[in-house]
């Protein structure tokens, strides 16, 4: 019973803060709302018997990725730059098509989704996950490490002023 109350409370938190990301015009408020939404999702992982993933969600997403977003927003000083209003036709098409998409998604989930409860406990602690990862998924794990290295090099190359292309002048503009 208590788990249902926790589920509904944190589901509401996740949805409200996710909506705040979309609706609020200040990107700093959006990023902090997204952090709150990720915390609520970490609670969902605990309810789904995956506490290790919940810790990872808080550390990696809320701790690392969102701090990167906040740093970039503050570095570019975006909160003083008013975002231009979206064109009404784009707003209308965006809201209607995403509402239709969401309704279709929930309809098919309700129609074809699994509704019976899983039987028995699900062991997914750090030990089980680690053994599986380094036995069956060792090759993708190494690939991800190479991908992260490539992403670091790419990010340095793209964001550094010295490595970037020269700014637009009269001559090199076609």
């Amino acid at each position: 019973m208590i788990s249902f109350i926790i589920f509904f409370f944190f589901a509401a938190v996740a949805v409200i803060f996710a909506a705040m990301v979309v609706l609020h015009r200040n990107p700093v408020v959006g990023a902090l709302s997204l952090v709150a939404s990720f915390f609520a999702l970490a609670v969902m992982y605990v309810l789904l018997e995956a506490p290790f993933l919940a810790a990872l969600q808080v550390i990696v997403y809320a701790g690392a990725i969102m701090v990167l977003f906040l740093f970039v927003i503050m570095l570019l000083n975006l909160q003083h730059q008013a975002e231009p209003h979206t064109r009404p036709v784009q707003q209308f098409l965006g809201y209607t098509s995403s509402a239709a998409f969401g309704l279709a998604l929930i309809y098919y989930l309700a129609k074809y989704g699994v509704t019976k409860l899983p039987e028995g406990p699900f062991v997914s602690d750090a030990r089980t996950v680690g053994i599986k990862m380094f036995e069956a998924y060792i090759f993708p794990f190494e690939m991800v490490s190479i991908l992260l290295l490539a992403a670091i090099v790419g990010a340095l190359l793209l964001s550094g002023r010295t490595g970037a292309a020269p700014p637009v002048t009269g001559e090199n503009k076609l």
Partner: protein
Amino acid sequence: MIPTHWFLILSAILFTIGVCGVLTRRNGITIFMCIELMVNAVNLTFVAYARQFHQIHGLLFVFFVMAIAAAEAAVGLAIFISLFHHRHTIDVDEANLMRW
């Protein structure tokens, strides 16, 4: 124990909010945050099905999705910093040509 399809419906709602943000916003970084929201909705689906079918593979996929989201965030934000240096805006409507 909470049924799996409730988590799936929550995930569908979060994914729809992300789609809505990507379609209606013009600030590049906000669009990026909405993509992160959609990635997290998919992660929730992975974990819910992992518990439903007692398969640990779903959790391992969430690890890889998290790592790739981190790489994507680093490269994407670097692209936005570079765009801001050139154009002094991150409005995605201003950046509709793949040249500077």
